[in-house]
């Protein structure tokens, strides 16, 4: 290896951390500024994904969050193998990559003093897909809310049901909604925050069932995939199709809240819960 190749290789990691390339407006943002701005582009207000733990830090009172059901993780019960390999291997790789063991983190904590039960999905883990473990955790957290009479807030970020678990994953839609139905019956508020992206079976189950449905600017929220719809109708869809703004206009969400304002917004809403 010659001296100049080595020098370039050493430089690479620096370039990655120093500058962030906005996926939407393509502008280069100073990494520190990007992070300080909560992974939101200061130029075009694009809300990039953040991890579950980052969101917990952002929203919950310091030291108030307690994780629950953290031992639940996926199993390859169908021995599912596709062209790229087994689901079993994918689970391991995703655990290693993300440092979490399912596509959702569940627990309870305080938002400006208000106690809530919560589930925060993480898109890094198998695209936030809804598997059996995900469904179990979301139901368990709903049951925790039910038992302790706490408002339940679910933050969704998901590509939909997890294909590698077949109909077991489809049934998680019914399972999680059964939990929501019990909260409804007991008049316990359920707030759904739909983040970028929330699609397929997650949108078609608990994520759309919030007493309040909240979103972040520009989040993609939909049922069928954009390409599938374009193939069905044989024409191009408008740019804003299936965005938070589109859903607000069509009456399916209550409000679009900037990431930096989410904590204040949720606390304000929770302050109206008078039971």
């Amino acid at each position, binding site marked *: 290896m010659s001296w100049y190749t080595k020098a370039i290789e050493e430089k690479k990691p620096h370039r990655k951390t120093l500058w962030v390339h906005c996926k939407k407006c393509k502008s280069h943002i100073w990494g520190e500024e990007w992070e300080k701005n909560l992974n939101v582009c200061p130029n075009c207000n694009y809300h990039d994904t953040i991890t579950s733990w980052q969101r917990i830090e952002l929203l919950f009172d310091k030291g108030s969050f307690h994780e629950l059901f953290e031992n639940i993780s996926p199993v390859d019960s169908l021995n599912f193998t596709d062209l790229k390999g087994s689901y079993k291997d994918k689970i391991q790789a995703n655990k290693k990559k993300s440092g979490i063991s399912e596509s959702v983190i569940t627990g309870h904590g305080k938002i400006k003093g208000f106690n809530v039960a919560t589930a925060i999905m993480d898109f890094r883990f198998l695209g936030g897909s809804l598997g059996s*473990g995900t469904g179990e955790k979301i139901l368990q957290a709903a049951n925790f809310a039910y038992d302790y009479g706490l408002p339940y807030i679910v933050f969704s970020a998901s590509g939909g*049901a997890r*294909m590698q678990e077949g109909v077991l994953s489809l049934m998680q839609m*019914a399972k999680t909604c059964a939990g*929501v139905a019990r909260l409804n019956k007991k008049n316990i508020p359920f707030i759904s925050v739909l983040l970028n992206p929330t699609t397929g*079976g997650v949108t078609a189950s608990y994520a759309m069932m919030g007493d309040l449905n909240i979103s972040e600017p520009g989040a993609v929220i939909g049922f069928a995939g954009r390409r599938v719809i374009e193939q069905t109708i044989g024409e191009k869809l408008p740019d804003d199709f299936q965005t938070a703004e589109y859903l607000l206009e069509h009456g399916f969400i209550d409000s679009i809240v900037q990431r930096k304002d989410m904590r204040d917004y949720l606390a304000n809403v929770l302050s109206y819960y008078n039971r």
Partner: protein
Amino acid sequence: MVVATGVKVIEKAKKQKLSHNSKTSKVSAWETVKISRHPQRPILQDYIQKVFTNFVELHGDRAFGDDTAIIGGFAQIGNQKVMLIGHNKGKNTTEHIERNFGMAKPEGYRKALRLMKLAQRFNLPIVTIIDTPGAFPGLEAEERGQAESIARNITEMANIEVPIISLVIGEGGSGGALGIGVGDRILMLSNAIYSVISPEGCASILWRDAKYAPDAAEALKITAQALLENNIIDEIIKEPAGGAHTDYEQMASEVNKVLLRNLKSLSNYSVAELLDMRFEKYSAMGKFAE
């Protein structure tokens, strides 16, 4: 465009010869898919005629329109009065177009929910018949809240205070099927399928090519037998040798018998017991490590 694609599918299905012989060979998952989509396979209309009597169809979601891809109304099976709701496919091109290939829009799911609440008001058990490739993936469906309508049905079905029996007679296509499928009993005909995604859709995502649909069908474990083994469904209704389309009368009589038996067994429970059992049933679904 959707019509053209659909027609092509039917024509293709008609040409396919089924090599199914129940006596000698095990049917592959992909062959089962083909049988479940067979153009001569009995559809909801056939069961309405042969299993039920006195069908009183009720229309509309009271909000937007009347979706012909899902129909429902009062019906009688034996001496038992029920609310019957199901996906409405067709058998020829005209019918398929009229009924949108059994792919319901939000107004279809909202009509179904209205009828389920009506069943509760009248204290009638509900029978839902599932046979759909999936919920309609179109612009107007998204615009009117396809996801919300399915989500609401799934959620509210958990609290409906009468027994619900769901029977998959052909294709159980993902959320579009589950939108009327949260039953106290889930039954399937032996050649019906129930899947989280169509084998073609799964193949084009995970195999990068829809031609691997037979592999995807196998991997997804979508046959009645596989679903029974995974504790998803409660019972399989055996089809005549060669498939339901070979003997409508025999198929209808089997369906009649099994539905009546399940209706009877569910009539023994109080509302509280029924809702507890339903909650436990769906709470227990899924496999994970702890």
